[in-house]
């Protein structure tokens, strides 16, 4: 029996949001489309799972997360570590520091970061910066920060060592910090 059509319509109304969510994570339009499709089908099949919950979007996003993790797991099996994803080596990042361990260029404060969070262009800048990260590094970072997985789970999903995982996350953060500083916080013009 097919579910009542208004439930289907409600679910369908969330598609655009879910697609966007999946695209941020998977960085591949086709894979995002597939994950959302799977999530919507699972949602239709599991309508009773929703009963009594107040927020449809939250519920759907929860289902989608699982589909995204599945997709990531599949694609990380198919895709070898890229050169930029680098093994547990931090030598490139050591360039940020001088010999005695001090910053070569100590990070300066950012002007009004809270206001950036209210601006759409800031998030475009952030997405551009994410797009510049090596693929697996970005994935590990988003699994941690966006999906909220524990680091140990991420290592397992991506089949990498724990050290490698920590290094990837560190690299992602440091690189994103630098990218945001260059593209956003040091360019007042971009903020007006």
């Amino acid at each position, binding site marked *: 029996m097919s579910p009542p059509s208004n439930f289907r319509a409600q679910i369908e*109304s969330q598609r*655009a*949001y879910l697609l*966007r*969510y999946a695209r*941020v994570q998977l960085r591949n339009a086709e894979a995002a489309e597939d994950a959302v499709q799977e999530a919507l089908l699972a949602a239709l099949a599991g309508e009773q799972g929703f009963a009594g919950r107040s927020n449809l979007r939250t519920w759907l996003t929860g289902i989608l997360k699982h589909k995204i993790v599945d997709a990531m797991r599949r694609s990380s099996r198919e895709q070898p570590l890229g050169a930029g994803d680098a093994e547990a080596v931090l030598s490139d990042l*050591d360039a*940020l*520091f001088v010999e*005695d*361990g*001090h*910053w070569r260029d*100590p*990070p*300066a*404060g*950012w002007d009004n*970061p809270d206001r*950036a*969070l209210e601006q*759409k262009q*800031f*998030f475009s800048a*952030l*997405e551009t910066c994410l797009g510049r990260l090596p693929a697996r590094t970005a994935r590990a*970072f*988003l699994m*941690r*920060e*966006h999906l909220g997985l*524990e*680091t140990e789970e991420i290592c397992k999903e991506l089949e990498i060592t724990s050290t490698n995982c*920590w290094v990837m*996350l*560190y690299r992602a*953060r*440091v690189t*994103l*910090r630098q990218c*945001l500083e260059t593209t956003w916080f040091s360019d007042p013009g971009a903020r007006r």
Partner: protein
Amino acid sequence: MKLLPCREVSRLVSQGLGRELGFGERVALRLHFVVCEGCRNFNRQMHFLRRAIRELPDSGDDSSH
């Protein structure tokens, strides 16, 4: 007491976003932050980055609502 170098501090800050730091580690960070503005900024920016990423999916075109 010898302070941690900034290089180690930056790694510890990143680790602190993925696991509970030990007491000694937290103390070492605090002490370092007292005297080092660069690392204070770095730490703030790392936490800001986390907030920004969490708000990411809601930021874009959401015209269906």
